[in-house]
C-alpha cells in the first residue's frame, strides 16, 4: 500500500507520516466545504497557483493529485499514474478532496495541461451522453442486472488496465462521500398512538420492538414477511432497495416503511386520500466533493 499522509480526523489510520511536514502550520484558512465539483476544486488550485498534494477519496477509490505552482505535475490512483490517473480521478463525481501534508515530489508524470485534461473529460462525457439511449428504467434495470462495469471506457488508450486496480484499504476507511443519498433514520419507537391506528416497529429478525393499537403482534409478523418478500421482488426485478409498501383496502391504508438496516415500521389505519398524491419529481444530485 502506498504511504499517504492524510490529516483527517475521520480517518482511523494514518500511514507513513512525512516527518518533513510534521508540525508545520499552514497559513491561511482551512476550509470545510460541501457540494463543489472536483473540476472546480482543481481549477481553484490552478488559479491560486497552489502547491501541494491533494488526496481524493470517492467511495472505495483513492487517488492523489500533486500540484506545483498551480500546475498538475503528478497523479496516481491504483496502478495508474500520469495523465491516465488524472483523467480517472477527475472523472469521479463525488467524494472528498483532502489537502495532504505530503510534500510535492520532484517527478512529473502528467504531460497534458489541466485545461486539456478537463476539456477531454468534458468531450468524453458528451460523447457517452450522445451515444447512449435515454436512461429509462428498462435500460437501468439491464445495467444493474449486468453488474458493475468496472472502469469506464472513456480513457482507453492511456494504459488503462483491464481489471480495476486494487484499492488502498487503509484510505478506503476514511472515504465519506460528500453528498451521498441520505438514508432515512430508523425510528426507535413505533408511531404515535392514535385512535383506530395500529403502529409497529419490527426488528430485522422479525421481532416486535414497539407497537400500539389493536393486534400489533399480528401486524408485526405480517409486515415483516411483506418487507422480506418485497425485498426479494426488488432484487429479482433490479428495482433496487425497497423503500415503502402501501396497501389500500376499501376501509384501510397500510404503510410499511423499510429501512436500510433491516428495521421495518408500519402503520395500519383508516384510508388516507392524500396517499394517492404524486410526490414531486426528484432531480439527480449534482456532482460534488467535500473539502477537508
Amino acid at each position, binding site marked *: 500500500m502506498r504511504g499517504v499522509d492524510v490529516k483527517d480526523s475521520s480517518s482511523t489510520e494514518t500511514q507513513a507520516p512525512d516527518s518533513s511536514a510534521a508540525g508545520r502550520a499552514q497559513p491561511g484558512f482551512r476550509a470545510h466545504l460541501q457540494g463543489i465539483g472536483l473540476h472546480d476544486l482543481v481549477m481553484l488550485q490552478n488559479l491560486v497557483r497552489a502547491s501541494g498534494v491533494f488526496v481524493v477519496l470517492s467511495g472505495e477509490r483513492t487517488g492523489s493529485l500533486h500540484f506545483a505552482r498551480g500546475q498538475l505535475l503528478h497523479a496516481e490512483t491504483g496502478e495508474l499514474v500520469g495523465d491516465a490517473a488524472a483523467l480517472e480521478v477527475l472523472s469521479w463525481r463525488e467524494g472528498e478532496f483532502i489537502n495532504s501534508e505530503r510534500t510535492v515530489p520532484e517527478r512529473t508524470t502528467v504531460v497534458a495541461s489541466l485545461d486539456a485534461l478537463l476539456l477531454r473529460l468534458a468531450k468524453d462525457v458528451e460523447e457517452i451522453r450522445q451515444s447512449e439511449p435515454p436512461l429509462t428504467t428498462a435500460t437501468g*434495470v439491464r445495467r444493474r442486472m449486468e453488474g458493475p462495469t468496472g472502469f469506464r471506457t472513456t480513457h482507453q488508450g492511456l494504459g488503462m488496465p483491464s481489471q480495476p486496480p486494487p484499492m488502498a484499504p487503509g484510505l478506503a476507511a476514511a472515504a465519506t462521500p460528500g453528498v451521498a443519498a441520505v438514508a432515512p433514520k430508523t425510528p426507535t419507537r413505533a408511531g404515535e398512538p392514535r385512535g383506530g391506528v395500529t403502529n409497529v416497529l419490527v426488528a430485522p429478525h422479525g421481532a416486535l420492538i414497539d407497537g400500539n393499537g389493536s393486534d400489533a403482534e399480528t401486524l408485526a409478523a405480517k409486515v415483516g414477511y411483506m418487507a422480506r418478500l418485497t425485498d426479494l421482488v426488488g432484487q429479482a426485478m433490479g428495482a433496487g432497495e425497497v423503500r415503502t409498501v402501501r396497501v389500500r383496502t376499501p376501509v384501510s391504508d397500510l404503510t410499511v416503511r423499510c429501512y436500510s438496516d433491516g428495521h421495518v415500521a408500519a402503520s395500519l389505519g383508516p384510508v388516507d386520500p392524500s396517499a*394517492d398524491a404524486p410526490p414531486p419529481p426528484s432531480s439527480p444530485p449534482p456532482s460534488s466533493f467535500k473539502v477537508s
Partner: protein
Amino acid sequence: MNAPIDLTARTLQSLRDIDGVYGSFVISATGETRARDLPPVFDDRTLADSGMRIARLWEVIAEGGAPEYALLEFAEYNLFLRRVGNGCLCVVVPAHVNVLALRLASKWVARYFEPVAHKNTFFS
C-alpha cells in the same frame, strides 16, 4: 381456450397512456406470467423469479381483506399491484406516477381480465 392475445396486449398497452408507465404484466395465482407488455429487458427469467414472489406477497397482503391495490416503492421505480381474476396485474411505474389515474386505468384493465378469468383458463 386462451385469451385473445392481441386484445390482451392492447389492453395492457392502454396503461401506457398514463404518464411515466413503463409497462405491465399479469401473473396467475401461482406467479406464472400470463400476459405482458414490457420492454425486453424484463426477460422471462426476471418475470418468473419476481412473479412467484409477487404472488406470495399478494397472498399475504390479501390476508384479512381484499386490497384494492398495493404500491411497492423501490429505489429505482415502483410496482403497482392490483387483483385481476385469481391473479395480479403488475404495473411498472416511476415514483412520480399519478396513482389516482393509475387506479382508474387499472380498474378498466381488471374488468377486461375478469370475464377472461371466469370463462377461460387464463389464470388456471
